[in-house]
């Protein structure tokens, strides 16, 4: 007899619009809207995977459905995988565990130490590992591969030639190879797989007069240990300057890079931060570097200097510890996390972007050298290194330590949610100084948040920053309603109690005397008296709760 869950639910189920709308004859705008809707649906669905053993959450059902689809070949794996592949950036990919770990190990096992890519119809050597059979044979970056085994590379090589090259070397232990060196000479050698330690080169520093020269080949798992020993040698030799050669360094792990910077930097400073979708991971130096031995540092770079190597050189340059000589770097400040899939593959996925404390990143831009110079590959001399030897001045740098660690983050939207993980991470670091994050909205208005306060407030997340457009339209509307012409209106994200007092800061022509929260429902002003500073046309004051806030040079009646 009684068959309805509840009238409303029943009605809603019946009325719920079936959105399997035909996709035919769509305009681009419509297609885009549909794409967005689907992505949001997936995104939200995955956010709520439920692990109830009876409730069968969304993803369990999806698993069954996809299994059937793939099994019956209605909607094949390739279709879906293709969409995924196109949705990620160039640095994200799926790989087998072995390949991935091996490529950033300090100790290379049974490798040729050679990587090539297709460049203008030629197979060009992109990387030669230090200490590798390839390097010992005399092959250098920029060499063009002419032949290998019994294969002659065609005049105009294509993608399949690169694949054939890779497959050939994956299947042999020893092989003859002929290359044309950048100097124009041909080189024929037989290279044999071998074990070698790439990072040993860092201990092998060269000292010329008062200057030490160190090649930093990569940021492998244990690079920091080799670096520390090499750096120590330079200190013991008492050199006044040191040249780090990062020209073939394409990056690697974050940890060794961090440790190496920490070995060098004598002061406690903010170094850089990584912005994830839901958090900011900050890095500071421990002040472990020698305060008495401060060498002048020069980093050598080329367009191949990438990622962690840019992070290394960029951080030293930012704080004035180092100058960069050479060519503009590659420009990759995004970083990847490795996530294990249940089938044993590893997903390498771009998850964050690295920034210097002032909020600038080198993504797509690269680092600009203090002195630009390009090596002439056709000569046997190293013009860049020769220049660097003359460029060093032996004058180390001392940096004044600030009272707190400050990071500026330019909001991509007017305001963004800051999940608690940022502040939890900072708290767990037990830093020597407080950390402040300044969120800069599109119109330049700022909100400054003390990490410790924000964490203590135990808010689940808050939106930080100030709505640019909505602030100005609220200002316009309120002025029409009689708000004094000289008052400023700001609208912060998330109305309600922050539980602590973020600082907001913006330009204002007149010194304010009164502050109000505006209640848009009741159309009423509630005065509050925040601590504030007004100087050089910039107002700075504390708010305890978000909402529509008015700073006015005259009283509002």
């Amino acid at each position: 007899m009684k068959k309805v869950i509840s009238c409303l639910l029943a009605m809603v189920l019946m009325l719920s619009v079936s959105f399997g709308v035909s996709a035919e004859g769509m305009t681009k705008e419509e297609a885009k809207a549909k794409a967005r809707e689907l992505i949001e649906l997936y995104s939200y669905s995955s956010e709520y995977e439920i692990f109830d053993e009876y409730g069968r959450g969304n993803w369990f059902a999806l698993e069954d459905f996809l299994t059937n689809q793939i099994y019956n070949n209605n909607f094949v794996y390739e279709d879906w995988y293709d969409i995924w592949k196109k949705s990620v950036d160039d640095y994200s990919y799926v790989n087998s565990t072995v390949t991935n770990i091996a490529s950033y190990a300090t100790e290379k096992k049974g490798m040729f130490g050679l990587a090539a890519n297709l460049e203008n119809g030629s197979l060009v050597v992109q990387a030669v590992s230090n200490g590798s059979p390839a390097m010992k044979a005399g092959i250098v970056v920029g060499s063009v591969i002419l032949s290998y085994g019994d294969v002659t590379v065609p005049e105009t090589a294509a993608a399949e030639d690169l694949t054939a090259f890779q497959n050939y070397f994956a299947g042999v232990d020893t092989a003859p190879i002929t290359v044309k060196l950048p100097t124009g000479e041909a080189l024929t050698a037989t290279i044999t797989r071998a074990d070698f330690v790439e990072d040993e080169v860092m201990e092998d520093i060269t000292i010329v007069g008062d200057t030490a020269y160190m090649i930093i080949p990569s940021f492998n798992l244990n690079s920091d240990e080799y670096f520390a020993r090499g750096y120590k040698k330079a200190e013991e030799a008492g050199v006044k300057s040191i040249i780090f050669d990062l020209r073939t360094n394409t990056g690697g792990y974050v940890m060794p890079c961090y440790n190496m910077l920490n070995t060098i930097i004598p002061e406690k400073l903010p170094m850089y931060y990584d912005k994830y979708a839901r958090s900011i991971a900050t890095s500071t130096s421990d002040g472990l570097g020698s305060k008495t031995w401060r060498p002048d540092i020069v980093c050598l770079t080329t367009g191949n200097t990438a990622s962690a190597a840019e992070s290394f050189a960029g951080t030293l340059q930012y704080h004035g510890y180092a100058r960069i000589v050479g060519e503009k770097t590659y420009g990759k400040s995004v970083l990847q996390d490795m996530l294990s899939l249940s089938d044993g593959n590893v997903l390498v996925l771009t998850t964050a972007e690295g920034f210097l404390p002032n909020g600038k990143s080198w993504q797509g831009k690269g680092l600009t050298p203090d002195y630009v110079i390009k090596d002439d590959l056709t000569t046997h001399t190293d013009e860049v290194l020769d220049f660097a030897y003359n460029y060093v001045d032996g004058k180390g740098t001392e940096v004044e330590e600030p009272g707190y660690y400050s990071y500026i983050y330019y909001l991509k939207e007017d305001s963004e949610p800051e999940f608690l993980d940022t502040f939890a991470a900072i708290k767990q670091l037990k830093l020597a100084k407080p950390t402040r994050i300044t969120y800069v909205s599109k119109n330049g208005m700022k909100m400054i948040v003390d990490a410790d306060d924000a964490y203590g407030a135990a808010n689940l997340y808050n939106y930080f920053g100030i709505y640019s457009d909505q602030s100005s339209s609220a200002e316009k509307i309120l002025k029409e309603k009689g708000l004094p012409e000289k008052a400023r209106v700001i609208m912060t994200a998330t109305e309600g109690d922050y539980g602590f007092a973020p600082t907001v800061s913006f330009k204002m022509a007149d010194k304010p005397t009164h502050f109000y929260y505006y209640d848009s429902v009741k159309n009423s002003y509630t005065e509050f008296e925040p601590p504030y500073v007004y100087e050089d046309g910039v107002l700075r004051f504390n708010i305890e709760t978000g909402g529509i806030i008015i700073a006015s040079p005259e009283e509002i009646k």
Partner: protein
Amino acid sequence: MKKLLSGIVALVIALSLAPSAFADAEDDRAMAREQAIETIELYEFSTYYEQLEGEGAGNWFALVDYLTEAFLNDSELYKKLNGIWKDSVDRYSALREPAVFDAAYSTYRVDQPGVLFDFEADVLTIWGTEDNSPARAEGIVGGSVILEWNGEKATGDYETDYYALSRSYYENDLTLNLKLELPDKTIKDYTVKGATYDADTASAVCDVSSDGKTGYIRVSNGFNEDTHEKFAKAWKSAEDAGVKSVIIDLRNNGGGYNKTLDAMLDTVLPARVPTYSAVSKNELSLSYANGTSTFSPDIVILTNNETASAAEIFTTVLKSYKMARSVGTTTLGKGVGQSNKTLSNGKVLSITAFPVADPQGFTYNLKGVTPDVEVIDDPTTETDEVLDFAYGYVDHAGVKVTEPESFRYTFYLPDDRFSLPTSALAFAKRTADESGKAVILTFVSSDGTKMTVDVKKAYDAALPIYLFGIDKENSDKIKDELVESGKIPETSIVLKTADPKLFDDRFFERGDFGFPATITTTSEFEPGYFYYYKNGEYEEFSPAHVYENGKLRFNLGRGGTIVITKEAL
């Protein structure tokens, strides 16, 4: 070290290999399943890390572009993808137009006829009518089959007829001229004109029995926006009338908002007590009542198989405190809640987000809440057998509930793992802060091993991700390996703390909780030695522990793999 996240920042040159494990023609089901799982994981991980912008970044921005192009060139693609999404969600999840959604949990009907349809029937059938509705006023009764509306004849297909009728209603100036076949098979015509009315006035009223001892409150219209206010009125009048027992009729109550539920529990409960918990991936919602009621009648709740969701929680909470008994039939068993998300196009996604459990970890999902006494209403009679029974069942003796020292919530781990991001822990901490009580969480693995943590301490330790519970599967695996290689005796206990696969192992191997967690497990022997085991090495530690009646309880300062033995290794 001042760097937490060990990401990889490298320029990958021509090293990336595309996975080649594509399904071929004769793929077996296991392979298809593996690929399905991989696909899901890829999406999941990618969505977790959206929001990068600019050159070389921004997974989802790129996906928008790609899909847009794909839809333009292949109109079937959207249908396929959409089909996959639809089939991937449970029956309570839906995408709704905003207006429909807003109206869903209000009892104020605007321009409605008030006819309820029996959506499980094969042909368009009226289930009943709403209180105060025009249909009720016209005398329409449940069980009537609709033969014609506004001159249109029913086709016999439920869905077709439903939509045709709805359209006709709006096109005919909110009027339905119905030809119905009544339950007694007679044919009769009705005219219903839409009106605006409040469909729930009943929950504001308490009917006091003639002897003055029992009150009856019917809350049958869901837990709508203002149901708690109405219910509070009825509850107050029951108290004022001095009744000893209250019958709360939750039959056909399909649930609604949790804030309404909370307010109703506040009204009924006499003390500050934990009520229920809801856990999702990022949220840990621990509800408690702020009850101050001095009125403690004996409560009997009437339920049937349409009592669902919030109404089931209400019932189960009061029953868990022995404040109420229930009578009728087993409830529907919808122990999952939905979160509402507004998409950028304004539509509202109502998605199943969390299972609901009582503080003891009991979930009635799919099982329903069983009544203390099963009483079935006989549909062929005019009398309400269930209600009549309840009047005789009340014993007029209320139960006193006392406020506990701390709020305890138990969670049963379905797949032997549990992880909580800091933001979820912040929910729990807020419960502790607001209530002024210590909040203690216990995570129970499938073999009964428990891990107990104090939320405040866990929060203060400020680990970005907490892992709770024992990973049963891997514990057993490690134990088998060690026993097989003769490293540890057969009787040893091996416990590995939870380890979510989403995150990098290296990050968690340090394992420092920063606060003591309590582990409770069964042990056949008096434990002599405790070790942390890692990579073939054993590190001894001496935790505070108690062993009695075959149960071992000890404190753990950090996570990892723990080996417990009788003799030294």
